[in-house]
């Protein structure tokens, strides 16, 4: 019912504003659903047990799958995370807790620059610095390239999250006679935990789909590889190869690969969220 004190003009303005916001929300969400829908539509046909358990078939042979690329991607991302996450968190902690000075500014500036370097340039650099001296493409080189891309994002987001922890929380711990480093690790990091995890997941999701840096490093492989010093298949590489091939069969497999890649990313982000939430308490900020 209309409140007699409110004019029609204001009701109209309210309605318009609401409609406009709903429209904006739809415009933002629509592309995401369009992509997901199209992926499923194109890819689900080739998505079967063989696709998930077999290595690629030779050209012209029907069947085969991307099992080695799925596992390869998982390994590259795991190793990249093992290298990149601690470095990123460490640098973020340094910046927020000890970085209000020139050294901090240098690191901050470097991180921001690194964030803006095109991924293909990072791939080429790792090629020159890791692949050439080692004399082969490798899983390790791929992970280094992705780790380099993760570090600046994680560093800056960790710093931001730590800066949001009120100073009074640090003082509370110092006041109890807790050492400064212990306060940072056990109180400040713990308080900012969920924000830091979000930053890590964003960095992870971003590099998980990277293709260019892997071309020069992990290179790709038609067969299984479990060694860090050998060329390794990865989903984005496999999708690229299959998507640009002249075979229809490979095109649909590329779509299926894209679908699996998205599922892999969404799955790991969701899994981390669930695990992170498990430890949370009633009413915790």
């Amino acid at each position, binding site marked *: 019912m209309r409140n007699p004190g409110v004019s029609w003009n204001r009701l109209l303005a309210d309605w318009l504003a609401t409609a406009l916001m709903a429209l904006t929300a739809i415009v933002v969400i629509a592309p995401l659903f369009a992509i997901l829908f199209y992926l499923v539509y194109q890819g689900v046909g080739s998505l079967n047990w063989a696709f998930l358990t077999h290595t690629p078939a030779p050209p012209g042979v029907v069947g085969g799958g991307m099992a080695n690329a799925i596992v390869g991607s998982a390994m590259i991302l795991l190793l990249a995370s093992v290298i990149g996450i601690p470095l990123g968190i460490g640098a973020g902690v340094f910046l927020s807790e000890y970085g*209000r000075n020139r050294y901090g500014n240098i690191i901050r500036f470097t991180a921001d620059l690194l964030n803006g370097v095109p991924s293909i340039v990072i791939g080429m650099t790792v090629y020159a610095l890791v692949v050439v001296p080692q004399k082969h493409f490798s899983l390790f080189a791929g992970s280094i390239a992705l780790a380099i891309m993760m570090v600046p994002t994680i560093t800056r987001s960790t710093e931001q999250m730590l800066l949001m922890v009120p100073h009074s929380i640090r003082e509370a711990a*110092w006041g*109890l006679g807790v050492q400064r480093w212990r306060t940072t690790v056990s109180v400040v990091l713990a308080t900012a935990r969920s924000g830091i995890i979000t930053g890590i997941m964003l960095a992870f999701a971003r590099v998980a789909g990277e293709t260019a840096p892997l071309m020069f490093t992990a290179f790709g492989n038609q067969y299984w590889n479990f060694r860090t010093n050998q060329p390794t298949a990865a989903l984005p590489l496999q999708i690229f190869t299959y998507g640009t091939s002249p075979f229809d069969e490979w095109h649909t497999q590329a779509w299926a690969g894209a679908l699996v890649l998205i599922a892999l990313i969404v799955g790991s982000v969701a899994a981390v969220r669930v695990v992170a939430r498990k430890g949370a308490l009633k*009413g915790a900020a």
Partner: protein
Amino acid sequence: MGTPVQVQNLSAWFGERQALESITIDVPPNHATAIIGPSGCGKSTFVRCLNRMHETVPGARVEGTVTMGNINVYGNGSSPVEVRRKVGMVFQKPNPFPTMSIYDNVAAGLKLNGIHNRRQLDETVERSLRHAALWDEVKDELKKKSGASLSGGQQQRLCIARALAVEPEVMLMDEPASALDPISTAKIEELIYQLKEHYTIVIVTHNMQQAARVAEFTGFFLMGKLVEFDKTEVIFTKPRDKRTEDYITGRFG
């Protein structure tokens, strides 16, 4: 047991700016001593010098001596961390650790200093929460509920319990009730009254009735200087200094 706190010629700076000028004061053990004065006069700075929190501010500096029992707070051999273990601090705004449970908040001082004995922790948590008059309100949800989910008054008592858990000899309270409602304030005052038995208490307050209710001794600060220090009733009934009289009669501040 509480320890006496002897402060001699204590001066403190924030960079170039001097916040305390040559404060000399003998805080008696097992009593509450109130620090009053208009805002900006250096009350917080004074208590923060007692547990070496002042020096955590970039550019801050302290001169003079502070002794607590046999500890020379600013002596060569003493470290800020050790001093702070002997001195509990309660801040103006309740600051429980937001992601820790009630239990972990109280146990934090012990756990973060390397004590993990379950029985000892359980006992300390219960004793500290009882001491802080919070036990009955939280005992059923110790480990399930976050410290941040309590009401403001409960949070402040949780912070008091957290400070008590490390068994300090001196408790510093910087306007511990100024952010609380009257009922919570009354509870905190009641608590201070009981804590005196075991601890030496220094409480900053801008509420003169509160000083009169909880403290046996009162120091009046003005622009970084200690103007007058005496028994609370003397300060409030027949102060020696004209400026103290002006302040307590509400002529300024």
